[in-house]
């Protein structure tokens, strides 16, 4: 079935929604509704386009010459693109439904622009993942960066503008590297089509150069350490449904680019590429979660978790690349499977968490967790969906985050089993990093949920909070259900993603699932059945309920009230642990790594060099004026004054001019 027209329909619907929002600037309420509904419809079209392609495993192509002679408009809807379209559409659906109520908050504060840029942002991402030509790829990449830049600065606060500027800078530094990579490829293939790139046989140093340029270029977009400085500033500044799209999907475009260039185009031929990806992934994961732990701005904390999860995705991708380079089909497929599965999962739960944070901000008008507290009882549905998201991101079984981390562990295990000394050394080191990351993520989300949703309200606003409107709940519930479905349905999802992985790695099919089991290649090594885990947990709960019911008739009814115990003193709200105190032991134990953040973050240096640049420019600017522009102006003035002398206002002199001109013309024609 050719579902490509549906992709086009989806893109066009987003664009229509964007312009409807722009045109309805005077009637924002209608504009919000148009943008949200068009976005939802477009997302449904996107889901309808990608799901059949994913299930049938079919690759669709379309090519036309396009308006430019140097670049053909080529669409290559392979399985990777289909997965990305699926992820984008799923998140866009939740975010668009959510925006129907959420953006009302911004009425009179540029809600129309928000609808415009949001839909354009999603449309450009959708177009970006399906095009197969470097020129169009870059155009859509820039569109995506620009649209998201405007979303980041939509609050117009000082901090948002600053964050937006940093984002703009790093995004463009990244795209310059990507352009260079494509240019190198173009030089050798003579065409901008990715298809022509795929057939190239580059020498190893050149291929490595292209890979490094693309890796760091796309890595800046993905927010991997050390190019992550913009992410914790820019994502929190955007409105929450846009943060969900940025953290859930846009950073994945970076991963998509790395896979497209490193795996699909260059074929991951060199072992150290994969090891480099693994190393950066491990470092991103540990540092991302460690820095998240020290935050008490809820959205910034979630943004740091994106750095962490990008790291986990890169671990899988890196293991897969090592597998391709060392010709181990099982490892190649397992690694890419783990990476892509986590990509999908992270989009879902991070989107959910950002929407949840948005709901809290919607009611409380603050991002500071110290001013929340007790929201679990005042906003029960938001709290429940947020809890599911928090459990998923902490990789707790049987939810989706656990399944993809399990596959990541399995790919690292497979990698450690054989190969050179370096590979066997790297595997367990990354495993330890992943284990630390997992434990820290649990701590971090206990903190987030505990401080914001549990205990007593920490501010008057928190004490008066109400549940958010139905569309926002619906958006979050959709993603929460997806978290559960992608976890329990692992045995159905894993083969689909494994198919994508084996298409990318150009290997035969690898068996990863049967019935309710998922396993790495064969069930004899080890296996996981998330439904079984869920049944065991449910059975355990049942036994507990039965045991808890013993002697029930002999005890008094449960009493709910009174203060917490405080060693015999009167309980005081100020005694309660704050978000900062909670993570204090770790902040002291890992103090050197926190210091590293100040020392190794390139963004202050970048900002410094930039301030030098603007300083130099503002020094140059007057020179330019004084030495070139001003003399020219003076010359023109002088010329004008000379010309004025010809005009006396006396018509006899004008007649003289005419006669003189006639004489000259006659002489000229005669000659």
């Amino acid at each position: 079935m050719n579902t490509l027209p549906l992709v086009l329909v989806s893109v066009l619907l987003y664009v229509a929604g964007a312009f409807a929002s722009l045109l309805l600037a005077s009637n924002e309420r209608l504009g919000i509704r148009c943008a949200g509904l068009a976005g939802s419809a477009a997302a449904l079209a996107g889901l309808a386009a990608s799901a059949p392609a994913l299930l049938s495993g079919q690759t669709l192509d379309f090519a036309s010459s396009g308006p430019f002679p140097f670049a053909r408009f080529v669409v290559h809807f392979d399985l990777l693109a289909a997965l990305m379209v699926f992820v984008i559409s799923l998140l866009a659906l939740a975010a668009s439904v959510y925006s129907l109520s959420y953006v009302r908050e911004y009425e009179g504060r540029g809600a129309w622009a928000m609808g415009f840029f949001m839909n354009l942002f999603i449309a450009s991402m959708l177009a970006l993942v399906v095009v197969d030509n470097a020129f169009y790829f870059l155009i859509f990449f820039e569109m995506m960066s620009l649209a998201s830049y405007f979303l980041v600065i939509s609050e117009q606060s000082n901090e948002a503008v600053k964050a937006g500027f940093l984002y703009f800078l790093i995004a463009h530094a990244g795209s310059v590297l990507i352009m260079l990579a494509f240019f190198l490829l173009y030089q050798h293939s003579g065409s901008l089509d990715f298809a022509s790139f795929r057939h190239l046989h580059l020498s190893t140093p050149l291929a490595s150069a292209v890979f490094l340029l693309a890796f760091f270029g796309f890595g800046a977009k993905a927010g991997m350490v050390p190019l992550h400085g913009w992410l914790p500033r820019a994502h929190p500044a955007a409105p929450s449904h846009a943060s969900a799209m940025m953290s859930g999907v846009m950073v994945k475009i970076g991963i998509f680019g790395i896979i497209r260039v490193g795996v699909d185009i260059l074929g991951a031929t060199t072992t150290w590429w994969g090891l480099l990806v693994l190393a950066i992934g491990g470092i991103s994961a540990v540092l991302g979660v460690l820095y998240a732990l020290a935050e008490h701005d809820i959205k910034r904390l979630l943004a740091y978790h994106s750095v962490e999860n990008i790291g986990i995705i890169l671990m899988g991708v890196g293991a897969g690349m090592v597998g391709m380079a060392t010709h181990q089909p099982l490892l190649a497929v397992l690694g890419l499977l783990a990476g892509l599965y986590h990509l999908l999962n992270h989009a879902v739960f991070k989107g959910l968490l950002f929407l949840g944070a948005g709901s809290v901000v919607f009611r409380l008008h603050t991002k500071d967790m110290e001013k929340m507290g007790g929201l679990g009882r005042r906003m029960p549905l938001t709290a429940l969906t947020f809890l599911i998201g928090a459990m998923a991101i902490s990789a707790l079984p049987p939810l989706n985050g656990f399944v993809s981390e399990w596959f990541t562990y399995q790919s690292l295990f497979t990698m450690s089993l054989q190969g050179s000394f370096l590979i066997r050394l790297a595997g367990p080191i990354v495993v330890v990093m992943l284990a630390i990351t997992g434990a820290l993520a649990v701590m971090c989300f206990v903190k987030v949920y505990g401080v914001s949703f549990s205990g007593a309200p920490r501010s008057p606003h928190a004490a008066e909070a109400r549940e958010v409107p139905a569309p926002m709940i619906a958006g979050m519930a959709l993603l929460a259900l997806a978290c559960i479905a992608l976890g329990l349905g692992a045995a159905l999802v894993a083969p689909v993603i494994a198919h994508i992985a084996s298409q990318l790695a150009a290997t035969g099919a690898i068996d990863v699932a049967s019935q309710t089991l998922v396993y790495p290649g064969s069930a004899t090594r080890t296996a996981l059945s998330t439904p079984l885990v869920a049944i065991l947990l449910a059975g355990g709960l049942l036994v507990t309920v039965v045991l808890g019911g013993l002697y029930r008739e002999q005890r008094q009814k449960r009493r709910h009230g009174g203060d917490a115990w405080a060693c015999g003193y009167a309980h005081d709200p100020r005694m309660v642990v704050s978000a900062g105190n909670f993570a204090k032991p770790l902040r002291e134990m890992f103090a050197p790594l926190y210091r590293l953040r100040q020392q190794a973050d390139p963004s202050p240096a970048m900002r410094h060099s930039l301030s030098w640049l603007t300083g130099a420019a503002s020094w140059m600017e007057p020179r330019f004026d004084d030495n070139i522009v001003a003399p020219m102006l003076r010359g023109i003035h002088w010329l004008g004054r000379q010309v004025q002398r010809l005009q006396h206002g006396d018509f006899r002199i004008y007649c003289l001019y005419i006669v003189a001109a006639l004489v000259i013309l006659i002489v000229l024609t005669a000659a």
Partner: protein
Amino acid sequence: MQTMIFLAILQALVLLAVAPLFSGLSRVLRAKMHSRRGPGVLQDYRDLVKLLKRQDVATADSGPIFRVMPYVLFGSMLAIATVLPLVTTRSPLGAAGDLITVVYLFALSRFFFSLSGLDTGSTFGAIGASRELTLGVLVEPIMMLALFVAALIEGTTNLGGIGLGIATGHYVSPTAIALAGAAFGFAAFIEMGKMPFDLAEAEQELQEGPLTEYSGSALALLKWGLALKKLVVAQMFLGVFIPFGQASEMTAAALAFAAAVAAVKLLVVFLLSALVENSVARGRFMLTPKVTWIGFGVASLAFVFYLTGL
């Protein structure tokens, strides 16, 4: 298959039933080492019955998490108890007996356990939660690396598979296995909530801080669940690294023998851990990383031995 499911359920229920016996044993041993008379071995059963008859009290600020936590903790421990190799060398339910699954099931219980500490609005509960999680951060990597080295040697990440390999004498690198076992034993000791990492008699101060606000039947379930956790952690160590005597085929004689051996092994582990626990001093909490580094160092050493093939 059906016998395995039956065995899984049976072993979980047996572990559940004897858990208060073992925690009572710990109390008796501690009293003996303190030169006290102490309560009897069955004291914990009497405590449980008494608590089950008492009223539940929750603080005004507490929410649903506080309510469900004892059930989740208990439930996840029971789930782990079904998959551990106890009397058989293989895990009775292999599909959930992967080492990663089990480690993350512990994380599930830790997540809710700590969250309940914050949920009450109690100061001590929250500090206890923070400490519990910090210990988790320090211990989980040790556990994971030690198990991973053993898994690499035996070529499977299934707990039963690793145990089977060790039981049948398949060592590529015996030193590495021994060191990994030592590191895992160290981590298991901490996970069992023992001194110097925890002092259960002064609950509000350390690891069991989230218990502060519990009372009545909820506290009974929690105490029982934590006793079960100690047993489960100890058995996880035994089942993987000291799987000797566990039945490899399903005959009644082999199983009965294995059950007796399992009981003896658990007794020895509890005896040894009581000895260690009562003969070390308690350190400041902020110094625990200095102690846990030893465990991590041993696990790393195991990895190096494996890597060099010694």
